[in-house]
């Protein structure tokens, strides 16, 4: 059975008077919201504020008690749920790759059920793996448990794209990753977002993620929509205390001028360190084990630079040492000003820097697009 496409592109998604109750409590209460075709709309708010419930009513994984959700004017109640879901890419935090299927089978599952031609599926899987920076020859036939968390998340994204849906629903897709890995995937996701140019509804609890990725941000609290608008509007015109709290939880924006690198850095951990004499192939396995996208190469105490797993996978067979492959990386002192450090990084197009206390690495500084906008 080849399911017909419900829609080729999204004009708009409208929530009208949506209410969902569990027992006596409201998960979502009288929600009115329009999602505009082509935008990335963020849903953010405290835990239990109804974000996931809202998201799941779009693909009918949850049915509302009152109100209607329409996509391009079609009431979702009138659409067959299976068909609806095949037109919507879905990505969740815990990924949910099927452990008994290879990466190829995981990504190609729905196309196969749709009886697409074998060759086409194979081609599609390869294209998608390339798209999320995983060399297909290396990953197609592996099982999910042989992949690192970051790699699995990429496969989850590739799977969501398998049917080339015009709409994506993402529920904290990077929520389970450590901050640096999350940053890297966000950066990559931004690229993907610009390339695929689709409508995306994205749930997160990370305001930085929201500010970086979102075209518009909808803030929810206790099942109600508090404010929706572009990032600048929320920062400069918060509707209430809660919004102000959420968008600037660390009061960073107000103290931009006095903020130091040490206030923004993530702590340095030994797992980021690779020895200069290690070979590229071994480094790929090691980084997969340690769930790293980027590692820092040291020769004894001396920092040589950084390597990214995406680059190492390309030159896998040539037996090169990391000392030859390490790319330069900036270093800062803990007491340097953030404004200075971030603009330095921006000028050289780097998004990671190491914070050194005299000779010892103490932290990792990740560029912050939101702060950069304010400098």
């Amino acid at each position, binding site marked *: 059975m080849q399911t017909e496409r419900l829609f080729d592109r999204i004009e708009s998604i409208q929530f009208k008077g949506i209410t969902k109750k569990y027992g006596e409590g409201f998960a979502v209460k009288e929600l009115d919201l329009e999602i505009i075709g082509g935008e990335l709309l963020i849903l953010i708010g405290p835990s239990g504020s109804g974000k996931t419930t809202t998201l799941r009513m779009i*693909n009918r*994984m949850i049915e509302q008690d009152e109100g209607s959700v329409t996509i391009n004017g079609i009431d979702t109640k009138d659409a067959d749920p*299976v*068909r*609806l*879901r*095949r037109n*919507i890419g*879905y990505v*969740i935090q*815990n990924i*949910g790759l*099927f*452990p*008994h299927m290879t990466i190829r089978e995981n990504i190609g*599952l*729905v196309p196969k*059920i749709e009886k697409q031609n074998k060759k086409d599926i194979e081609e599609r899987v390869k294209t998608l793996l390339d798209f999320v920076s995983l060399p297909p020859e290396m990953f197609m036939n592996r099982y999910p448990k042989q992949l690192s968390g970051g790699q699995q998340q990429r496969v989850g994204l590739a*799977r*969501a794209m398998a*049917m080339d849906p015009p709409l994506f629903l993402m529920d904290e897709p990077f929520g389970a990753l450590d901050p640096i890995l999350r940053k890297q995937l966000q950066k990559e996701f931004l690229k993907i977002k610009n390339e695929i140019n689709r409508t995306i509804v994205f749930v997160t609890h990370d305001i930085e993620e929201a500010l970086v990725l979102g075209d518009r941000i909808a803030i929810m609290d206790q099942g109600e929509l508090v404010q929706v608008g572009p990032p600048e509007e929320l920062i400069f015109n918060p509707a209430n205390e809660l919004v102000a709290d959420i968008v600037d939880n660390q009061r960073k924006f107000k103290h931009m001028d006095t903020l130091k690198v040490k206030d923004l850095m993530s702590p340095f951990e030994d797992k980021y360190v690779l020895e200069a004499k290690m070979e590229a192939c071994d480094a790929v396995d090691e980084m997969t084990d340690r769930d790293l996208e980027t590692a820092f190469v040291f020769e004894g105490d001396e920092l040589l630079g950084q390597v990214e797993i995406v680059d190492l996978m390309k030159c896998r067979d040539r037996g090169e040492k990391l000392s030859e492959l390490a790319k330069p990386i900036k270093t800062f002192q803990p007491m340097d000003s953030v404004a200075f450090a971030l603009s330095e990084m921006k000028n050289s197009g780097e998004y990671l820097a190491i914070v050194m206390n005299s000779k010892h690495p103490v932290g990792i500084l990740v560029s912050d697009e939101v702060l950069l906008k304010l400098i």
Partner: protein
Amino acid sequence: MLSIQVIADVWDRHLITMRTIEHLHMFSIALILSIIIGVSVGVFIYMKPKTANPVLNFLNIVETIPDLALIVLLLPILKLGAGPTIAACVLYSILPIARNTYTGLKSVDEQYTYVAQAIGLSPREALMKVRIPMSLPLIAGGIRIALVFCMGVVTLGGLVAAGGLGTVLQNGIQLYQKDAILVAGLWTGLLAVLLDGFAGMIEKKLHERYGTW
């Protein structure tokens, strides 16, 4: 002691090659039927959870009937020959296979069934592509138990003219030929051990491939 000469002699006189083929023939039919019925019952009681307890209780009662008694009970219905023996095998084997299928399906992490639904699998597709494959290690465990049951029951079948190695044993007992009893007994035992070992290997492979726990 058993010499090669004695074994060869007994083997020929009692047509053990032919009996082994009969034996394995009955055994395979019984096992295949058991798997088909057992897995179907397991899937059925999983989909209609209200039926699970009554069905499993009933199968448990069947399980407590002594095997010889069960075969004899089936005689009037299915006449002499392989029928009663195969039917008895199947009746015994449904429980372990159905129970393991049911437990397997139930223990698949909710997360996976949720995702299957969310990416657009119909309930049936989710069952076929996700739940059943992920339950295979447990289902295989049930089949392995059934296999051991069936080897025993098929051997008993010799008593009701079902053929197979049981017939050799019975002849040996009636004619009081110790050698025949010994050869047939050892050979039957060895076959069971080999088949169980083989099934164990498959089960282990399935665990490696599909097992998440």
